[in-house]
């Protein structure tokens, strides 16, 4: 899909002869699309960079985006789309900023249109399309990496293991519990049990919006694993609605202690360990 040598040289000639006008028009076209969300000066800088690297590429012979000599142009394009993806511009806005070159070229070519002007323009369009697609691809790649980063951060953020009492740790689960998160929660909890030597763990599911069989399975696995290591788990924070769901789904928690609130769970554990809680002491006196 590359341009022929003559087409390339004509294109570069065009770009060079009308440099001022092309960059000017290009900037205007892009600015019209972005509606002033990027300063004119910054746009002009981007456009000039692209313009310059296209000319540089043309000086080396053929203009072809797939050629390894086109590294500078590709880098320029991907830097542009990366930057815009991070600044929150849409994919269309990013791609259109490259496609705008077509109109500009047409505009410039009309002035000194020759016999083969139309054919040339079609070829140039193909090159611009290629550049646009490349921009689009880098844009998507940047977005994907952003999403992956955020998912990872979310995973890190949302699974703290806190120490409630001497020998008692708690995991307040917040958000939907999928397999990946359940795995992280399990590993964290078990590691904390070993590190702190706590024989009791409370899994608080107040922040879990819905409990289905899969979520229950994950929780049960965690409890069984903790038991294998010699620690006891209590599940707390079961809301009325969730209790109904659990029964409706026929999920069996077996002999695992379940409590309505974290406070109840803590009191239960303290009683097991023989620590007197204030409320109990008052009632007895």
């Amino acid at each position, binding site marked *: 899909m590359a341009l022929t040598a003559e087409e390339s040289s004509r294109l570069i000639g065009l770009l060079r002869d009308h440099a001022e006008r092309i960059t000017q028009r290009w900037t205007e076209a892009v600015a019209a699309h972005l509606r002033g969300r990027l300063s004119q000066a910054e746009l002009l800088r981007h456009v000039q960079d692209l313009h310059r690297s296209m000319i540089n590429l043309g000086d080396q012979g053929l203009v072809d985006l797939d050629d390894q000599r086109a590294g500078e142009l590709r880098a320029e394009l991907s830097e542009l789309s990366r930057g815009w993806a991070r600044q929150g511009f849409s994919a269309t806005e990013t791609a259109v900023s490259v496609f705008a070159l077509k109109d500009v070229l047409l505009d410039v070519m009309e002035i000194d249109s020759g016999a083969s002007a139309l054919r040339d323009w079609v070829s140039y369009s193909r090159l611009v399309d290629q550049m646009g697609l490349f921009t689009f691809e880098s844009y998507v790649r940047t977005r994907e990496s952003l999403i992956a980063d955020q998912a990872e951060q979310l995973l890190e953020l949302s699974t703290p293991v806190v120490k409630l009492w001497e020998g008692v740790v708690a995991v307040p689960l917040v958000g939907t519990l999928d397999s990946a998160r359940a795995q992280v929660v399990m590993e964290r909890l*078990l590691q904390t049990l070993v590190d702190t030597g706590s024989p009791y763990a409370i899994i608080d599911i107040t922040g879990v919006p819905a409990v289905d069989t899969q979520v229950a399975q994950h929780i049960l696995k965690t409890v069984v694993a*903790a038991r294998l290591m010699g620690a006891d788990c209590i599940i707390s924070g079961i809301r009325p609605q969730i209790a109904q769901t659990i029964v409706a789904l026929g999920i069996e928690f077996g002999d695992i202690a379940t409590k309505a609130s974290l406070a109840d769970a803590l009191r239960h554990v303290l009683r097991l360990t023989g620590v007197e809680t204030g409320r109990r002491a008052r009632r007895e006196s």
Partner: protein
Amino acid sequence: MDRVPILKIGDILLVSIQLDMSDQTAVQLQEDLAERIVATGTHGVLIDITALDIVDSFVGRMLSTIASISKVLDAETVVVGMRPAVAITLVELGLSLNGIRTALNVERGMELIAARVDRDWLVDDTGPDGETTASR
């Protein structure tokens, strides 16, 4: 042939498994342990598996067998120091080590056995000797 050492600490026998178990070492360990339990009259056996990276069905069955043997000889078995990764693997495999008590570390395991011995003493000595038990 490799032998697993059996250490006596107070009233407890401590078995620390540091090497990959083969059929032979497992059988040897069972024999040695049974002999030591009878010889010492202990009521608690601690099996430390901190050093084990992998616990498969073979090791799981060996632990169960040891627990059963000890039970017959009136000694409680507590498996201590299981690693998180090992526990997760066991759960994923669906092995639950039935009939084996577990503790996080040797210290907790000793507390567990001490509590059991205390309790049994209280149960055994209800009757005319009840007062001496209370004074212990």
